[in-house]
């Protein structure tokens, strides 16, 4: 089936296309050079065309997301959709149910979204939730930063074993990237404490956050993974934490990127940096350190960051940073869920209200915006809200409108935000406005590239997946800075969204809600003989400490409806012993 999107203004930073009027041709789910005359025509005159959005960091599936859904019925009530038009019923404002998550992403023109924290032990549950998430391609990042095996091998200085274990765990959990959350801190929390910088050792294992970041960064390149190490720094949300942030960024800087898949050129992906840019010593003398962190990023070429923009909503915070969630619960007094995942990681969940009139949330909003506006090169930025931590992903269109309109921001700063946004941050003095090209960069191009998926994602060149969003925005007739509400609305409800060449959204409404995305995962092995040694430890510790049997732990490939294994295609699937499911097999 051939299609052609005619006359749209195309924004495609990976191919240096900036608002050019051109046609996009589609055949068999891919973008092609040309199509026949009888191809189905999609008229995009007076509209803009971008690749499908790629969200590199969101929390949409798995244990703690589900805890968020279960223990916040009052959040479910704030966004309820009835069954209809082939769509399932759903609910949830900050933590929508699985089906609704897929619909909501698609309506905004997003076609790829990555679950950024998967406890390895709970991988099966995470994949099960992916089963019920329509449209979006996805992957999940297993947590490595507080894992006993990782800490043991790093303590022994054995990078080979660390790499072999990491490769095995990615394969066993069908995971995609090395995720590090509060390295050493979540393990310290299991002992009733936390670490406060990258040089505090974790109890018993006696390795520091810096050791873990450096070790795993090296392992990442030994394995040649498509994505950079995905780091949530220590000391999240605490005044004075920016020094730890910059020191953490510095740890892996001299390592050379060697991806075996994709063309990533960065070594480090630092997430929700907004929460890591605070100066001062407490919330009274607090001041934004975003300009200092932005300055470091401007001068460095080894990292990409995502912002974690606060959206000023009532939301649900959830992170594998257990001690941080306890601090938050102590601060706001709201209900708190805490979880320890056997030898691997932990997590916490707390509701949070980012009230515009409250001093700290107003400043946090300012810090996020400062980062967006002060980091000069948008190829180093991904737009996120760390959904749902700083705000739900359904607010991305609002963040885009804030970036594109100084008027929108000043309106908010002058009329709605607490004055701390002006006195504690420099946001009111910044008048930069993002162009549509830069919006496409921070929502598609940068993320696809740093994920190592820019071969098929985040652009509209020939050979890319036909994941395309058409928005009812006309830069030739509209003043986008002045008409910010129209921009927000257009980005919330795409005129057309195509997934693998199929029209799934039309005028903001789902028209094909029963299409399911791919699961990307890493199928690699590092030195089989070392892996054999590692598995001796793993099996021993499973018998001793885990509540599941070793044989029940790995997620079989036939558990994944549209499996896309990357790297070493010759790795034996020793666990399931089954043929890999065919690409394109439907649910």
């Amino acid at each position: 089936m051939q299609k052609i999107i005619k006359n749209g203004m195309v924004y495609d930073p990976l191919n240096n296309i900036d608002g050019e009027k051109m046609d996009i041709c589609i055949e068999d789910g891919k973008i092609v050079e040309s199509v026949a005359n009888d191809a189905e025509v999609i008229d995009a005159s007076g509209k803009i065309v971008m690749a499908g959005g790629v969200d590199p960091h969101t929390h949409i599936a798995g244990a703690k997301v589900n805890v968020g859904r279960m223990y916040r019925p009052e959040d479910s009530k704030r966004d309820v959709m009835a069954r209809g038009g082939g769509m399932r019923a759903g609910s949830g404002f900050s933590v929508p149910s699985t089906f609704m998550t897929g619909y909501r992403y698609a309506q905004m023109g997003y076609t790829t979204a990555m679950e950024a924290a998967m406890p390895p032990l709970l991988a099966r549950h995470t994949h099960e939730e992916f089963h019920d998430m329509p449209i979006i391609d996805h992957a999940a990042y297993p947590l490595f930063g507080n894992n006993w095996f990782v800490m043991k091998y790093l303590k022994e200085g054995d990078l080979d074993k660390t790499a072999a274990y990491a490769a095995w765990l990615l394969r066993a959990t069908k995971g995609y990237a090395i995720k590090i959350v509060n390295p050493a801190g979540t393990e310290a929390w299991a002992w009733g404490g936390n670490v406060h910088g990258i040089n505090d050792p974790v109890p018993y294992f006696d390795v520091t956050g810096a050791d873990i970041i450096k070790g795993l960064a090296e392992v990442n390149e030994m394995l040649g993974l498509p994505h950079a190490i995905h780091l949530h720094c220590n000391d999240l949300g605490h005044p004075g934490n920016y020094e730890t942030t910059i020191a953490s960024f510095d740890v892996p800087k001299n390592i050379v990127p060697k991806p075996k898949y994709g063309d990533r050129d960065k070594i480090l992906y630092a997430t929700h940096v907004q929460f890591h840019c605070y100066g001062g010593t407490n919330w009274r003398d607090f001041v934004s350190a975003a300009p200092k962190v932005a300055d470091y990023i401007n001068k460095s070429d080894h990292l990409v960051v995502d912002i974690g923009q606060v959206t000023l909503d009532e939301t649900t915070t959830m992170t594998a940073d257990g001690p941080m969630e306890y601090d938050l619960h102590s601060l706001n007094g709201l209900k708190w869920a805490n979880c320890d995942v056997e030898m691997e990681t932990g997590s916490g969940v707390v509701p949070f209200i980012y009230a515009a009139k409250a001093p700290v949330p107003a400043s946090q909003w300012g810090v996020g915006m400062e980062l967006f506006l002060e980091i000069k090169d948008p190829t180093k930025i991904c737009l996120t809200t760390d959904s749902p931590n700083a705000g739900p992903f359904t607010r991305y269109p609002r963040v885009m409108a804030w970036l594109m309109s100084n008027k929108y921001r000043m309106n908010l700063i002058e009329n709605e935000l607490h004055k701390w946004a002006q006195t504690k941050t420099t946001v009111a003095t910044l008048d930069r406005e993002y162009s549509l090209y830069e919006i496409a960069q921070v929502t598609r191009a940068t993320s696809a590239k740093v994920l190592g998926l820019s071969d098929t994602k985040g652009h509209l060149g020939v050979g890319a997946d036909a994941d395309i969003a058409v928005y009812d925005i006309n830069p030739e007739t509209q003043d986008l800075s002045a008409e910010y509400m129209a921009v927000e609305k257009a980005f919330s409800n795409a005129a057309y969204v195509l997934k693998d060449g199929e029209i799934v959204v039309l005028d903001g409404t789902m028209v094909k809600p029963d299409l399911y995305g791919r699961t990307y995962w890493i199928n690699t092995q590092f030195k089989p003989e070392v892996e054999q040694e590692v598995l001796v430890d793993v099996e021993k510790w499973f018998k001793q400490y885990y509540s599941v049997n070793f044989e029940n732990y790995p997620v079989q490939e036939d558990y994944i409806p549209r499996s896309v294994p990357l790297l070493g295609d010759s790795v034996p699937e020793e666990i399931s012993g089954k043929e890999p499911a065919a690409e394109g097999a439907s649910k």
Partner: protein
Amino acid sequence: MSEIILKPKEQPQVPLEAENISPDAFAGKNIDEIKNIEIWHGNKQVTLSDFFDVEGEPSDDASDIKIIIDGDVSNTKRIGHGMTAGEIIIKGDTSMYVGSEMNGGKITVEGNAGPWAGRDMKGGELTIMGDAGDYVGSSYRGDWRGMSGGVLTVYGNAGNEIAEYMLGGKLIVKGDVRIMPGVHMNGGTLIIEGNVIARTGGEMKGGTIIVKGVIDEFLPGFEFLGVEKGIEVDGETFEGNFFKFKGDNATKGAGGIIYAATKGNAHIAP
């Protein structure tokens, strides 16, 4: 004042969900339009006239409308949900959520009401002449922001966990209540004229609870502040002697007050 009379035909086995029985929904509609107002019967949408005979004189102004439900609606939920003005009189029993999220106006239930009466109530007057169920004047499941305004009066008994997470307004129970009245309470006034089984004000941080009857078991997290004679709360005077407690110290920032009548409560004084 315009009067609209709803005569229930028969209460179905599967409950009706009738948040549209409210002066706000009736305002500006003629009788035929009111008959066609949609309510839910389980998961099916039906019209008001499927389950009620409707007659009376409509009005454009909600505050001018008095709805009289002339009979038993013991399996109809959410009557008067979110109403802002006007009046509803229920001349029988009703089910869950009567007056939930009510903002203004007046509801009188002449019979008994189910659980969650006046849940998240913000204003207006809700009066239940008979008994009420659990969670009267409480918050929505999971929420920490319950009833914040208005006056809710139960002439009979009420169930467990009434005034849960209450923030403001006044809740009066003339009869007895079961366990945990005022649990997590943060503001407002809860007056219990009858007896309480146990755990009054568990984890409360603010607000005032007055118990005129007997509290069987009292929580240990309350600090005894002494005996007061004839207290005044919210401009209302209560005769007699009261033990005064502050708590619940089991939670952070405890600043709730409980007055318990000295009569019958000697066992809870220190």
